[in-house]
């Protein structure tokens, strides 16, 4: 769980940095998208590195989901009879955010891939330049798309606010002296991700980037 989560977090950081390139102009962004596909060329054929990364990523997602599902099932088995009254004493929404939030994120990613990677649901279609797809996707009239992204990214933020600290705890590196710092870092990282991810679509929707 922790390892697969960490891989995904790493991806997200890179992904966010990439997305921010939109602010440097369409070309810069297109170059980046192109570079992703031609990394280490001509050593390796077109898209090799990206494919490897994708495979690792997909494996992580699958393993992560598998772990999440088996944990939930074990939890269900460990408590076959539910409480009539149950009141949380800690950050009680954590479990729900992790489980349902995770599912929401997964659904989003599917849609997101259809939208921006394969262009299936994107007005510009598959053959367009990535930057165009992106700008078209978030144009003001499609404010609801932006809204979906906002919800999704906030979910990701919440998931990671707990998830990042949780991964450190799971790997046994946390302790109470470090915890304050760790919790803060997790929060900070999540906040940076949320802001970083939301900046481009919002900028597009509000017409800052065209």
């Amino acid at each position, binding site marked *: 769980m922790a390892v697969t989560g960490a891989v995904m977090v790493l991806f997200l950081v890179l992904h966010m940095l990439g997305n921010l390139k939109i602010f440097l102009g369409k070309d810069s962004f297109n170059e980046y998208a192109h570079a992703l596909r031609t990394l280490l060329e001509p050593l390796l054929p077109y898209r090799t590195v990206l494919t490897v990364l994708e495979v690792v990523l997909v494996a992580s997602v699958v393993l992560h989901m598998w772990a999440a599902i088996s944990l939930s099932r074990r939890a269900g*088995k*460990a408590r076959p009879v539910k*409480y009539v009254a149950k009141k949380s*004493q800690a*950050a009680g929404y954590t479990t729900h955010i992790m489980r349902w939030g995770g599912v929401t994120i997964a659904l989003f990613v599917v849609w997101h891939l259809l939208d921006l990677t394969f262009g299936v649901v994107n007005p510009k279609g598959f053959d367009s330049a990535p930057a165009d797809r992106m700008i078209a996707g978030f144009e003001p009239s499609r404010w609801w798309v932006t809204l979906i992204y906002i919800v999704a990214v906030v979910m990701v933020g919440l998931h990671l606010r707990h998830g990042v600290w949780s991964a450190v705890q*799971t790997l046994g590196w*946390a302790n109470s002296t470090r915890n304050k710092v760790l919790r803060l870092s997790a929060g900070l990282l999540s906040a940076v991700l949320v802001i970083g991810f939301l900046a481009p679509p919002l900028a597009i929707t509000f017409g800052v980037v065209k």
Partner: protein
Amino acid sequence: MNLTLKVWRQSGPSDKGRMVTYKVEDVSPDMSFLEMLDVLNERLILEGDDPIAFDHDCREGICGMCGMVINGVAHGEQRATTTCQLHMRHFEDGATITIEPWRAAPFPVVKDLVVDRSAFDRIIQAGGFVSVPAGSAPDAHSIPVRKEDADAAFDAATCIGCGACVAACPNGSASLFTAAKITHLSLLPQGQPERLSRAKAMVDQMDAEGFGGCTNTGECTAVCPKGIPLDAIARMNADYLKANAK
């Protein structure tokens, strides 16, 4: 004070069980929670009803025998307090209180609020000890222990084995209990030789008993009457990972 209690009643393991409502009157705010139940039970006996079975012994917060989920919280809402040390002055007159047993598959209900926690003993059997037969010990001063380590080990060792952590955990995990013992022994020089094998054996036993996994939600430490911190779980995880890497 007058109270309405909704109590889980279950005559035995094969009974399905149900919530039953009782009224108790003239409760003194100075009573402990268990004394309030005693008063109700005395009345039930005289009425020819079966009194509510619940576990308890020391009634001073140290034996770990008592435990019920009160208004949805293991040991009730007062922090760092066992059920036997909870006093009625913390409840409002006229309140309705729900009382349920610990709920976890590895803690089957024996009767009413009494559950079987022998799974905890089996986790200790798996390795929660230092192998030192009586009479074979060196002089107590032959190995100095840093005060900080001794104090931290003590903090973990205060776990009373009540099971509230399991009752509160959304996953029904026994991680805090298991980690408390692993931490206690792994912080002391005496516990080093068996440190990794102990962590592995105890965690594997915990899983074998059917407890859930830990997803670090922290409900356990919030209800733990001894305030065992989540650090313990991190330490257990570290030892467990190391043991598996070997």
